[in-house]
């Protein structure tokens, strides 16, 4: 294949780092970057933190490339279709952009809630710079509290941002605890922290009815409470932006179905990265899954570019240990691995929770323990090795589970004799 033009669709973290990697590897054909946002790629995690609080402006969070990108930008342009048989991306107005290689990185959209009056400008989601500005504008319409629906990462960060801005905030959470996916210890600590900062949390709450009055938005909860808000943010998860790929010939179903190398299944000139890639991470098992974390998008973009240039038969599996962080007030919450796979959690140390599946440690989360996170990341890298080429991993059966006590002993016995975690997490 002589590659002349590589098209990247989606100008977020994954698309940007893919384009950068193509140039680093010496690709000297044309690179076209199609993105529907009006601006160059920026640091999306800042949207519900520094950008929302106003401590950073949009221009402060633009991503910086390590090399000259020399990209043909098509910003403010939405890809509306893909024809893999004709190797063309379809744009509005009948325009087509042909490709020799294609990287798909269209990320995700925040989910909506059935019944939410999204036509009201005070009822919003948080994904883009413009969304942060829209929330700020809505907050100026009255002195009523802000409400966020959802007690996960983004909901909790939004609440912390509101308190930093001196606003009252109410979290309407349909689970019993904030950050409940992190295990009870971290969830309880998060609950105490937010309560201590006078965040008003309504747990196990569902919204029965909405009112959009002149003075504020009313939410009727199923326990009979009514809360009034200047602005309501829906932070109830996200869904991959793949509708535009229906009928493309690719397998689209909760993301784009990929091979372990991030090649889209069934074709040899399309690679996928970031939140939309549903691929088997062979470190864990052969089940294709999506990962919605920023570092995985950054490294996945690079892996997609490397593999696209290498070609399908020389491509290497993408096997990161996923890592994520969130800041809750001044507390750093981090995790490594795949907590969602776990059936059980074990306390490993003060502020350190292990996530266990069939006796195997599959993830670790820490509450303000960055040193411990470094040590456990190295340990997890050894416990979950990248399988060597040719050997597919077993779907780990529930065999001789390693008891948590043994895990802890092994961890502490080895923590001063690491081989060095050099490059392990990024799979370079």
């Amino acid at each position, binding site marked *: 294949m002589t590659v002349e033009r590589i098209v990247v669709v989606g100008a977020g973290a994954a698309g940007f*780092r893919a384009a950068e990697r193509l140039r*680093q590897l010496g690709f000297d054909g044309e690179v076209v970057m199609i993105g529907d946002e009006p601006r160059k790629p920026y640091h999306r995690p800042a949207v519900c933190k520094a950008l929302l609080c106003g401590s950073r402006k949009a221009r402060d969070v633009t991503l910086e490339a390590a090399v000259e990108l020399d990209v043909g930008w098509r910003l403010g342009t939405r890809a509306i279709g893909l024809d893999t048989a004709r190797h063309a991306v379809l744009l509005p107005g009948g325009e087509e952009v042909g490709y020799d290689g294609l990287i798909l990185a269209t990320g995700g959209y925040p989910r909506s809630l059935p019944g939410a009056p999204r036509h009201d400008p005070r009822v919003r989601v948080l994904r883009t710079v413009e969304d942060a500005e829209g929330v700020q504008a809505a907050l100026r319409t009255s002195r009523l509290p802000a409400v966020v629906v959802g007690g996960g990462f983004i909901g909790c960060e939004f609440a912390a941002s509101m308190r930093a801005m001196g606003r009252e905030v109410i979290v309407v959470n349909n689970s019993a605890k904030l950050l409940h996916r992190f295990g009870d210890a971290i969830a309880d600590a998060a609950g105490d922290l937010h309560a201590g900062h006078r965040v008003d949390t309504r747990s196990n709450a569902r919204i029965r009815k909405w009112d959009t009055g002149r003075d504020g938005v009313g939410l009727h909860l199923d326990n009979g409470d009514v809360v009034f808000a200047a602005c309501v943010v829906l932070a109830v998860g996200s869904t991959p932006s793949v509708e535009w790929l229906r009928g493309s010939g690719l397998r689209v179903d909760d993301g784009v179905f990929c091979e372990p190398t991030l090649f889209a299944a069934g074709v040899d000139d399309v690679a996928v990265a970031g939140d939309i890639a549903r691929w088997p991470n062979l470190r864990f098992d052969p089940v294709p899954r999506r990962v919605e974390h*920023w570092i995985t998008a950054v490294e996945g973009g690079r892996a997609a570019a490397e593999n696209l240039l290498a070609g399908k038969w020389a491509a290497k599996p993408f096997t990161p240990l996923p890592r994520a962080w969130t800041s809750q007030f001044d507390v750093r919450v981090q995790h490594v691995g795949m907590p969602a796979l776990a059936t059980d959690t074990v306390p490993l140390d003060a502020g350190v929770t292990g996530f266990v599946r069939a006796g195997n440690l599959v993830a670790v989360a820490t509450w303000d323990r960055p040193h411990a996170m470094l040590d456990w*990341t190295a340990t997890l890298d050894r416990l979950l090795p990248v399988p060597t080429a040719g050997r597919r991993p077993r779907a780990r059966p529930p065999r001789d589970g390693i008891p948590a006590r043994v895990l802890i002993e092994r961890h502490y016995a080895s923590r001063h004799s690491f081989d060095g975690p*050099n*490059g392990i997490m990024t799979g370079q």
Partner: protein
Amino acid sequence: MRRGRGRATVVRVDNDRCELYGICVAEAPEVFRLSDNRLRHGRRIDPADEIAVAAAARNCPMQAIRLRESAR
């Protein structure tokens, strides 16, 4: 990153942004170190550490790490 002789990569960390997550330490342990309430790091980078330092910069949760070239 190719460069001529006599050039070096210089690391700068914006301490207003850095919140000490330690991602850079995992990526480039030869260059970055967390000690108590500070991030310590070398300034001029040994060429052998350049790839790791680039990984640290692009993965920094706070985008606090800047790399630039300077004459040695």
